[in-house]
């Protein structure tokens, strides 16, 4: 994964120009195999730019005026299934982040991430692997926690995590890297990625009822 065959084209979507230029500078300077080909500051700009530029990866802000990252995903996901979206958020509101993940983002990292880690995350989502930060792993565990008295699962197959998936998520939330999780659980890194992928799929497909209930329980909505 370290030797790039060709550069990964990235479009940055964030309503803060200062933040965009910061990320661009950091990616361009430190990472030869990732190049920022475009920027957008609003949902409409983002939709137009992504349609036009066809990037490999979109770094997508969660909070934007007129709809936010989830709106961009809603408009472009069906049309451009090959473009990979990575949520890059300063928000700590689980409900925002989960909303973007549900809309089809392949990962979520916070804005305090270093340039090197961000480039690594871009490479990983481009390679097809989901990227979870510990915090997102915590959010997802909470969404799927089967507490007594919680809403009944709509579709058991989708709404329940297997024990292995739960173990993987727990270790992610504890701050382990995929490689460390593999060592801890005596499985291959590929298997870890498969588990995380299926968690991501379940997050995107699990019923809305339970999520909204979970969010309102926590006074998030």
């Amino acid at each position, binding site marked *: 994964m370290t030797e790039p065959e060709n550069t990964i084209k990235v479009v940055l979507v964030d309503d803060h120009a200062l933040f965009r230029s910061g990320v661009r500078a950091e990616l361009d300077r430190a990472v030869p195999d990732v190049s920022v080909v475009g920027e957008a500051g609003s949902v409409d700009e983002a939709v137009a730019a992504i349609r036009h530029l066809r990037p490999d990866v979109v770094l997508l802000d969660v909070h934007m005026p007129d709809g936010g990252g989830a709106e961009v995903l809603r408009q472009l996901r069906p049309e451009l299934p090959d473009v990979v979206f990575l949520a890059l958020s300063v*928000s*700590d*509101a689980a409900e925002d982040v989960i909303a973007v993940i549900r809309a089809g983002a392949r990962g979520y990292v916070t804005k*305090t991430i270093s340039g090197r880690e961000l480039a690594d995350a871009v490479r990983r989502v481009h390679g097809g692997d989901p990227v979870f930060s*510990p*915090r997102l*792993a*915590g959010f997802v*565990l*909470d969404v799927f*926690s089967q*507490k*007594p008295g919680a809403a009944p699962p709509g579709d058991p197959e989708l709404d329940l995590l297997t024990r292995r998936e739960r173990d993987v998520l*727990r270790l992610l*939330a*504890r*701050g*382990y890297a995929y490689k460390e999780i593999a060592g801890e659980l005596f499985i291959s890194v590929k298997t870890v990625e498969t588990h995380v992928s299926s968690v991501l799929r379940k997050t995107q497909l699990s019923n809305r009822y339970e999520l909204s209930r979970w969010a309102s329980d*926590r*006074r*998030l909505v």
Partner: protein
Amino acid sequence: MNTPTPPLVRRRSGRIVAGVAGGVADHLGVPVTWVRAAFIALGAMWWAGALAYGLLWVFVRQESAEVTRATPRRERQQALGLAALGVAGALVAAALGNDLVGWIAGPLGVAAVGAALVWREADEGQRRRWTRTGGRTALWRTVAGALFVAAGIAVFLFGQLQLGQVQFALLAVLATLVGVGVLTVPWWVRLVRELTEERRERIVETERAEIAAHLHDSVLQTLALIQRQSDQPREVARLARGQERELRTWLYGAGGYGIPASDAGLTAALAAAAAEVEDTYAVTVAPVVVGGDRPLDEHLRALVLAGREAMVNAAKHAGVAEVSVYCEVEDDEVNLFVRDRGSGFDPADVPDDRHGLADSVHGRMDRHGGTVRLRSTPGEGTEVHLAMRARTHEEAAT
């Protein structure tokens, strides 16, 4: 009297009926009992006292809510006695006197009582209460008052006029009322809409001011500080980290934006411990809590303190910029993991004089029935796993 004469206002506190007598007494500088007695005496003469009282009630404004005065029990009883005496005297006068007093004291008296009820309800001081709590009693009182007025007027009219005329008059009055009501509907609607709009604007304005005040107190101050200390990267990072955490809590925290978190539960305690370590040792400590919150008891407090010590150890000895904290709250157990990717150490090599781990972590957890598992590999970092059995409420009570 050298002091200037106070303006004529009705008393708000310490009033018996509407505070008119007290207000007049304040204004004239005479004992309130004299004023009351004067009203009673006038009341016996064709209800003139009552009429004067009523007019003053309607036209004199009430004093501000800040003024408070106590009414002695004796004065209150005395005033009520005087009021009863006045009513009785007026009735006696009516019974003895001519027709005029008779019909005023009869139906119009009932109407006056009804009007008094409605006015009292619409009174400045009462109106506020009306919109909030106890709205039902106020409503009933108003309705009862209106019925009194209607009944009084109706009886009065029936007594004075022929039935045919009454029918006609009632119809005419009804038609006029309906007409006026219909004609003024747009005006009412506009009034209500304008009031709603104004209220909404005021709320938005208050909220804007609150946000501005918060940003001024927090972010702007920190940015000013950062500009002055831009040559000290460590200090700048510390300030920025602290400010980010504070603003984040304010925006997305447990209580939602602007609302301080009400309960100081496990989550809040952990966040506070992480924040302290962040500020003291200039490392990022990122706590993730799963499974909801739980009120702190002494065992969980010990868990948080032990966890804090583990964070301090990681911050001091691991030589890393970030420490992960993960807390999982289950029904019967709370697990806390503190992990760094730092230098690591061999637990067997820790000298005996190092108290941090032995006392603060192991000792605390042992005393409260918890367990500690320590995993450290030189070069790969350290993880401290603290587990505490969670007590149910019944167990905690015994």
